[in-house]
């Protein structure tokens, strides 16, 4: 993708949308700060390894405190805070921050996310959690 990223100043958001529709990609394409990325989904044995590790951890360090005032001693945050947009793409009903902002422009940060007409950078994306525009087709 690097050759494409180097041309990001010449590529508009609408170009990516047009390309996506032309090739028939339904989901998994992300437009991020002028760059196009493809999502990757974990396959076996990714979650199975995570599960085995968690079993070992919980059985030794957490389960012994269940039912006591000290519970929970440890909290498993899982994928909390890790690239939310990509993780949420696993959910078919996911709506990107941009889609939500268009529907609810009065939400905090919403006006900044709504496309600006004739703007070369269509979205003003600032924070970590909303800097990615998901190009998944709304269901």
């Amino acid at each position, binding site marked *: 993708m690097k050759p494409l990223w180097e041309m990001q100043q010449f590529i508009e958001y609408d170009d990516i949308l047009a390309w996506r529709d032309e090739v028939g990609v339904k989901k998994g394409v992300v437009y991020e700060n002028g760059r196009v990325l493809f999502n*990757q989904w*974990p*396959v*076996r*044995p*990714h979650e*199975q*390894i*995570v*599960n*085995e*590790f968690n079993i*070992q*951890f919980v059985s*030794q*360090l957490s389960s*012994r*405190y269940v039912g*006591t005032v*000290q519970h929970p*001693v440890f909290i498993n945050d899982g994928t909390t805070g890790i690239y939310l947009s990509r993780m949420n793409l696993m959910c078919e009903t996911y709506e990107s921050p941009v889609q939500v902002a268009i529907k609810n422009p009065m939400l905090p940060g919403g006006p900044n996310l709504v496309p600006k007409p004739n703007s070369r950078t269509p979205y003003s994306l600032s924070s970590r959690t909303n800097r990615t525009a998901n190009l998944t087709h709304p269901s």
Partner: protein
Amino acid sequence: MEVGNSQSIPDLMNIRDRMLSYRTAINVFVLISYNRNATRATDSWFLQVSVRDFYAPQPPPGTLTNYPACTVLYETPKIGAPYPRVELALAHGTQICDLPISHLYHPETTPILNPILPVSFRINVEQIRVTILNQRRP
């Protein structure tokens, strides 16, 4: 814990270095990687447990984000090939990794709980290998 998905082990090492750098408060990094090859017989894997260098001096301004170098407590043994094959059981003496509980709490002291916390968290590395062996795609 970082379980790589479509990431090379050197990439994961770079993530490890950043996660255990002076800019974070992460103490322990468990790296598990499954390398799927042309055949299941040649699949390999890698597990490494690293901890922050708790005693490294404060870095000067502008120090790179991979400072200080971490301390590796455990990694799967290299026998010939860089990474062991999934189908080969680990030798006795390399099947577990005991991670001191104090590493999970540093710089705070380990709390005194009832029942008392174990001295270490025992990672059954061999069981993780078996999980990869049994749960990988055919």
